[in-house]
């Protein structure tokens, strides 16, 4: 007779077979049998967080920076509801997470038992799929299926809810066969003729542009390499969404910078004026498109995505290619080479005109700001951070708001999986726990959370986790005492009525750092900034860096709401110049 295992043992056998090394969690009544089993599995390290939301974001940071699924273990009721924000965040940004939650014993489900909630009901809209395990014999199949669903196709979070009696019950363990139905859902559906059609479009185009997104990162490091090859082969300009940063080198000449609401002038104008738009693994998010009716009006549009439902959802495209980004780019490059088409040479004349136009837009230098020698400008702080860390392999996470956009604009990424930010859901408080997860996955690397003082307070408690596990993460706070992005919108759109966006009674972050047992550093003037950043980098402990920056600085350039890409609001320098010409005209 084959050996029988308890539910808790089966959970760990599955985790071992899935080669899971780290889980992020928080114990509680309904998961105690699983926690009891933890000691027998030395290959799996548990990271104890301080709040379940932190576990979720840490697992996201772990998954994004390593390419492996993040695993979360929480208890029933509040444990499960606390993780909902992180699951939704992962769902929006396509991050593979496997969340295991405890549940009250089967016979108590539906009786409003202590710490009971309808976990699968609550998490149904924010997971790719979820399971309530009602029969111990289903557990091995469900656990492996959970990993399969989370990591294949367009990745995303899943949840397995295991009642406490199931954790005690016994059954055989087996490694199930892959489900055919799921494989079919994730299959590449493109044909060679789609690729031929793409190449024909590329051949004809005189103003082409690549618009790449998080799909390239999710497709694996190979996809980024292939993308670089394709871009070099074609000579086309390339722009990236917030999530796609790093899949193409940020300091390369063919890269136009990020596009969208706070993207560069050249990237947005190129999107508006192009005649061929090739979307690779992006989803036409509303922060990208601006006004839909006037989005890239003159272009043929191609969309490459593994998720068929992303295609034609927002923007109707002329050519849809459903498949894994890496596979599609590979076929495209192969066909290009086979046909011996050197687009860069044959198209050179047409495209060089296009590049001239782009160069003209570039001279606007839309990311410029008026620096100061008295007060630290937040953009300057990010630029200095980049200059002082670019020589080592650095991982950046962010919270949400102005600092996030400044980090995206001024920090240049050269590799994928180095940039972890909450784009879709825009979760304040994402960055600190995400940095914890990144540091767990990459213990020797430099991990920095570029933060705002408002966001950081939402998940501040996780610094305690960093200290417990000696994770030397650096929290780089751009402290302007305001919810900066809210303040900016209020200034520009609500007649400077700064309703509830100023944080009174902020903590002393240096003392707070000391209270937690890590190091606090404060910078208040530009001339001390470099030394202090260097000091932060050199300390082999968690650091909270309180960088006091200009309170009234706004994040530019910006596409105001309801406006198309070619009507950007530029920075104060440009606005002043425009004002003068306006008056000048009136005089004439």
């Amino acid at each position: 007779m084959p050996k029988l295992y308890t539910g808790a043992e089966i959970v760990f056998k599955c985790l071992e077979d899935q080669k899971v090394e780290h889980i992020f969690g928080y114990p509680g009544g309904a998961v105690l049998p699983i926690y009891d089993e933890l000691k027998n599995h030395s290959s799996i390290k548990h990271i104890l967080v301080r709040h379940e939301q932190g576990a979720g974001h840490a697992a996201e940071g772990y998954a994004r920076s390593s390419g492996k699924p993040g695993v979360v273990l929480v208890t029933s009721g509040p444990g499960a509801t606390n993780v909902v924000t992180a699951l939704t965040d992962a769902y929006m940004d396509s991050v593979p997470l496997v969340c295991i939650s405890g549940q009250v014993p089967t016979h108590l489900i539906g009786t409003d038992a202590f710490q009971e909630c309808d976990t699968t009901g609550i998490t149904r809209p924010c997971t790719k799929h979820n399971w309530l395990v009602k029969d111990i014999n289903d557990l091995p199949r469900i656990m492996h299926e959970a990993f399969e669903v989370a990591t294949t196709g367009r990745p995303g979070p899943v949840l397995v809810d295991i009642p406490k009696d199931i954790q005690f019950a016994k059954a055989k363990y087996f490694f199930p066969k892959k489900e055919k139905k799921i494989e079919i859902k994730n299959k590449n559906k493109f044909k060679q003729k789609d690729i031929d059609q793409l190449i024909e479009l590329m051949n004809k185009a005189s103003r082409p542009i690549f618009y790449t997104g998080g799909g390239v990162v999710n497709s694996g490091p190979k996809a980024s390499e292939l993308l670089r090859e394709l871009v070099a082969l074609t000579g086309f300009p390339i722009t990236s969404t917030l999530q796609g940063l790093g899949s193409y080198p940020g300091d390369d000449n063919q890269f136009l910078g990020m596009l969208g609401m706070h993207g560069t002038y050249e990237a947005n104008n190129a999107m508006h004026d192009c005649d061929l738009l090739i979307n690779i693994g992006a989803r036409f998010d509303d922060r990208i498109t601006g006004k839909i009716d006037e989005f890239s009006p003159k272009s043929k549009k191609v969309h490459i995505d593994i998720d068929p439902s992303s295609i034609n959802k927002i923007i109707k495209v002329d050519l849809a290619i459903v498949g894994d980004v890496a596979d599609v780019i590979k076929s495209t490059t192969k066909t290009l080479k086979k046909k011996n088409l050197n687009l860069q040479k044959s198209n050179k004349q047409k495209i060089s005109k296009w590049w001239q136009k782009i160069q003209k837009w570039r001279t606007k230098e839309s990311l410029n700001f008026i620096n100061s020698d008295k007060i630290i400008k937040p953009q300057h702080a990010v630029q200095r951070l980049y200059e002082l860390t670019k020589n080592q392999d650095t991982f950046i996470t962010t919270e949400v708001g102005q600092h996030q956009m400044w980090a995206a604009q001024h920090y240049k990424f050269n590799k994928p999986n180095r940039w972890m930010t909450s784009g879709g859901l825009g979760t304040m408080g994402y960055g600190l726990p995400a940095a914890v997860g990144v540091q767990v996955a990459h213990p020797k690397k430099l991990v920095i959370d570029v933060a705002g003082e408002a966001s950081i307070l939402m998940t501040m408690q996780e610094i305690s986790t960093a200290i417990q596990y000696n994770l030397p993460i650096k929290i780089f706070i751009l402290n302007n005492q305001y919810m900066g992005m809210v303040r900016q919108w209020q200034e520009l759109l609500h007649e400077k009525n700064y309703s509830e966006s100023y944080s009174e009674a902020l903590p002393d972050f240096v003392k707070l750092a000391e209270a937690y047992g890590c190091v606090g550093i404060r910078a208040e003037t530009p001339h001390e900034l470099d030394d202090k950043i260097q000091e932060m980098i050199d300390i082999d402990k968690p650091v909270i860096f309180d960088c006091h920056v200009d309170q009234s600085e706004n994040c530019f350039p910006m596409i105001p709401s309801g406006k198309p890409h070619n009507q950007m609001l530029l920075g104060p320098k440009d606005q002043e110049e425009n004002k003068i010409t306006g008056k000048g005209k009136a005089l004439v």
Partner: protein
Amino acid sequence: MVKSKSAYSVPSKLGKLDTHIIVVWVDNEASVLSRVVGLFSGRGYNIESLAVAEVDQKENLSRITIVTTGTPQVIEQIVLQLKKLVPVHKVGNFKREDKNVIFKEMALFKIVANSVKIKKALNACKKYNPVILDQTNKSAVIQITALRREIDKMAKNLKSLGLISASRTGAVAMTRGAEVFN
């Protein structure tokens, strides 16, 4: 134009709305219906009617028939989103005007009236395969199968003949001819 204060774009004009019948083959497991219905409510799609039942006990398959309205783009999204759900095997999509598809709904009418009126009521239902399921000297339960609008009309017309209660199903659909939808 009034300056928009929203962080979101203004809605563009709505396209033409079509009525479609969506047929979904799913694993007959716990909460599968709420996944399908939740997708509709969560993404703001309409459900005009819904019919669900197991159709294959051995394969454990249920068939869900949903009548919905939307622009062509929304209908396409509904189909693609449904296909992404893990328990979904296949999805069929038919226009209501499609001549190759049969749609039927069933209704039970309870008539409380004298025998003359009951006879009249039965006669009025003649076109819609009426079956008397129960009859007393002052009441009858009549079953009809018909299209939605026909049942609407009958329910209105039978009021004067003593209709006091109507129970209706959602639409079910089947293609004509020898072909099977795949």
